[in-house]
C-alpha cells in the first residue's frame, strides 16, 4: 500500500508543476485542475489525494464545499445568470426562468448536445448594470428576456 502511494506520488508530482505538496495547496490544486479541463474528474481527486498524502474523501469534501468546483464536463458555452440582490430587484429571476426554458435544462445541467450549460452565480459585482448574464466569461448588462433570447440565438448559430 505504502509502495503504491509512493509510486503514485512520484508519477503525479510531475503533473502538478509549481506545487510543493503542502496541504494548504489543496484549493489551488483544485483550481489548477478545473482550469485545465473545466471540471474536476474522479481521476483528479485521486491524483491530488496522492500528491498531498491525504484521503480522497478529504479532497472531495473540500471541493464540494465550494460553489466554484464542478464535477461534470461543462458545455461548450457556459451561461451564468447573476442571482445578486441588485439583479433580483431588477427581476433577474425572470432571466433564470427564461434561460432554463429556452435551453430546456435545469440548474447545473448541460443541454443533451453538449453545447450549453446553465449555472447561477451569487453575484458578478456589476450591480449597476443589473440584470446581468455572463456567457463564456463575457458579461452582458441591462438584460431583459427579449435581449437574452436574441443573445442566445446568436450563440446557437455555429
Amino acid at each position, binding site marked *: 500500500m505504502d509502495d503504491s502511494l509512493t509510486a503514485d506520488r512520484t508519477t503525479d508530482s510531475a503533473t502538478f508543476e509549481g506545487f510543493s505538496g503542502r496541504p494548504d495547496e489543496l484549493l489551488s490544486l483544485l483550481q489548477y485542475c478545473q482550469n485545465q479541463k473545466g471540471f474536476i474528474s474522479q481521476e483528479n481527486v485521486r491524483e491530488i489525494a496522492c500528491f498531498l498524502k491525504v484521503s480522497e474523501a478529504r479532497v472531495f469534501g473540500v471541493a464540494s464545499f465550494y460553489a466554484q468546483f464542478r464535477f461534470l464536463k461543462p458545455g461548450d458555452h457556459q451561461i451564468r445568470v447573476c442571482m445578486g440582490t441588485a439583479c433580483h430587484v431588477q427581476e433577474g429571476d425572470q432571466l433564470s426562468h427564461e434561460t432554463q426554458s429556452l435551453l430546456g435544462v435545469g440548474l447545473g445541467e448541460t443541454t443533451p448536445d453538449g453545447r450549453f450549460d446553465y449555472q447561477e*452565480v451569487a453575484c458578478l459585482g456589476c450591480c449597476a448594470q443589473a440584470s446581468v448574464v455572463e456567457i463564456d466569461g463575457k458579461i452582458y448588462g441591462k438584460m431583459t428576456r427579449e435581449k437574452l433570447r436574441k443573445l442566445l440565438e446568436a450563440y446557437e448559430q455555429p
Partner: protein
Amino acid sequence: MNNLDAIRRQALLNWDTLAQPKDTPVIYLGSASCGRAAGALNVYEAIQETLDEYQLKARVIQVGCIGPCYLEPLMDITLPGSPRVSYANVTPEKARKIVVSSLVNGDILPKLAAGHFGSEEFTAKTGIPRFFDLPMLKPQVRVILKNCGLIDPEDIDHYLAQGGYTGFQKALQADPQSVICELKVSGLRGRGGAGFPAYKKWELCLAAAAEMKYVVCNADEGDPGAFMNRALIESDPHAVLEGMLIGGYTTGASQGIIYVRAEYPLAVARLKKAIQQMHAYGLLGEDIQGSGFNFDIQIREGAGAFVCGEETALIASLEGERGMPRPRPPYPADHGLNGFPTLINNTETFGTVPSILRNGGKWFQQFGIPGNTGTKTFSLVGKVRNTGLIEVPLGMTLKQIVFDIGGGTQRPFKAIQTGGPLGGCLSASQMDTAITYESMRDQGSIMGSGGLIVMDESTCIVDMARYFIGFAEKESCGNCTPCRIGTRILMDTLEKIVRGEGEARDLDTMRRTAMTMTQASLCGLGQAASNPTSSGMRYFLAEFEAHIHDKYCQAAVCTDLFEYKILAEKCSGCGLCVSVCSVNAIEGERKKIHHLDGSRCIKCHSCVKVCARHAIIGIPNSTRAAEWDFCEVLS
C-alpha cells in the same frame, strides 16, 4: 529610497505630458468589469478602428471605474490645450463620431459631453459642467477612490505620480509604533463592516511574538449587490497593495496574501500585474528600499463561498480546508494562518491606510464625525436613478445618499437594504438616520461592507426577505445548528407565505427562530442572517400581514398573490404591452383600451416594464380571495 524618489519625479513629468498633452491627444476609456458589461470593449475596438481609418495619432488608455456606473461606458478625451472632457453612455457609433470630430475637426461636441476636469472658465466657455459638479458626484468626498477612473491601473508610474508609495516611505522612516499611533489618531475602523478599530488589530499583531507573521487582505467580497472592493482593485490596485506593505512593515510580517473572489478575474489580472511592477521597482522582495524589511505578496483565489468573507473561515480556506468559521478567541492577530499571528483587514481598510500615512491621522479626522471618522465607499444600486460606486463621509444621512446622490427613485421610494444579505431593510421613516456603525446597528441593520440596495413600490419586502434568507441558507456552512436549521425554518416559512399558505402563527415562529439564531450562532453569518427578515417584520409588518391574511402582494411580485389588471383610465392604447406579451394574454387595438386575460397571463412582468403610464397594476387574486371568503364563511 532615492531610487524611488527619482522614479517618481520621472513619473510626474510623464503624467504632466499626459494631463496636458502638447501634441498627441489622449483618450481614456472606463473599462472596469462594470464598464465592460455596458459594452466598453466594443467601444475600444471602435476607437482603434477610427484612429486607424483616419490615420490619427492618440494614446488610448483603459482606466478603471470613476463611480457613476449609470453613465457607463465613459470615454474621456484630452486634446492639446484643452482639459479632459468626459462623454457618457458611449456606443461604438457615438465614440466614432466624437473621436473624428475632436481629433480631426477640433470640435469637442459640447452637447454630447457629460463633464470636464478643467477650470470654471472652461465651463463658462463651453457650457459643459465640471465632472465633479454633477449632482451625483458633488456631495461625495473622494479619499479612497481618488485615483479611480483617472489613472491607468496597470501602470505603477501613474500611481507614483499621484503620490503613491509616499505613505509607505513615511512609514519606513518612522517606527512601527508611530505608524500605529497615526492610525489611532485617524480613528479608522474596519471597513469590512464590523467597525473594529483598525489600530487595535495592528497593535495586537505587532505585540505577538512569533518567527512568522502574515498580512491577509480580505477581498472576498461576497455580498451580492456590493462591488466596492472589485472596483477599487480594478481601478487602483496599488493603493491596496501599498496598504498591505505598510501593514507588513508595521506588524513585522514577511508574507502578504490577498484573497480575491474567483468571480473577479479582471481584479486578479490587475493585481498580478501590479505585484510584478512592485518587484521591478524594489517594493517587494528582500531588503525593500534598503530598509532591511522583507515582504512578498501572493494572490489566492477564493472558490465561491460567501462565508469565507468571515476572517476565521477565510483563514481555514487559505489552509486548504472547508471554509468553516472557528470560534474566537483565539483571534487571528494571535493565532491565525497556520497558527501564526495574522493581520487580516478588508480591502478598503488597506486601501485607506496609504492616504492616512501620507496626510496624517489628523487630516483623516476632518471627514466624518467623531467616533466614525473618514469616508466609506458604498455601491448604490437597485431602483435608484443614478447607480454606481460612491464615497461619502460617515455621518451622511441615507436620505442624502438616495435622493441627492442617487437622484431618487422612478416610482415612490419604499425601502433601502443596507449591509448586504446580513443587513436590514430600512423604511422611509429611517431615512434621516446618519450612516454610522452604531446607528445602523440601532436600527436593526449593520454597516456591512457597503452595499446599498434601493427599493421602490414595485419591490415586495416579503419576497426580499425570502431572497436573503435563501442566500443565507445556501451559504450557511452547516457547522453550527442554529444557523443550519434556523435558515431552513425561515426559508420554509417564507416560502409558505409567498405561496399563499401563510398562517397567523408564522410571524411568531419567525421571530423566535430569528432570536435563537442571533443569540446562539457561531459566526457573524448565522447571527445576522435573520436581520433582513426581522427588520422587514419590524418596519413592514402590514405587508407581511397582507400576505398572510389577505393573500395579497401589493407590490405584484409574489406571483400566487395577485393578478394583473389594466386600468382603463390610464391606458393610452399604445400597444406596447400587446407586443411584448409572449403568451398573447393582452388584446386591444391601437388607441383603444387594452384588456388582459388573467387566465393566460404568466405574470412575467414584461408588460409592466414597458408601460410608461403605469397602467398595469396588481390587484388581489379574485378566485383565491373568493375561496378565502368561502372558508371564512364556513368557519
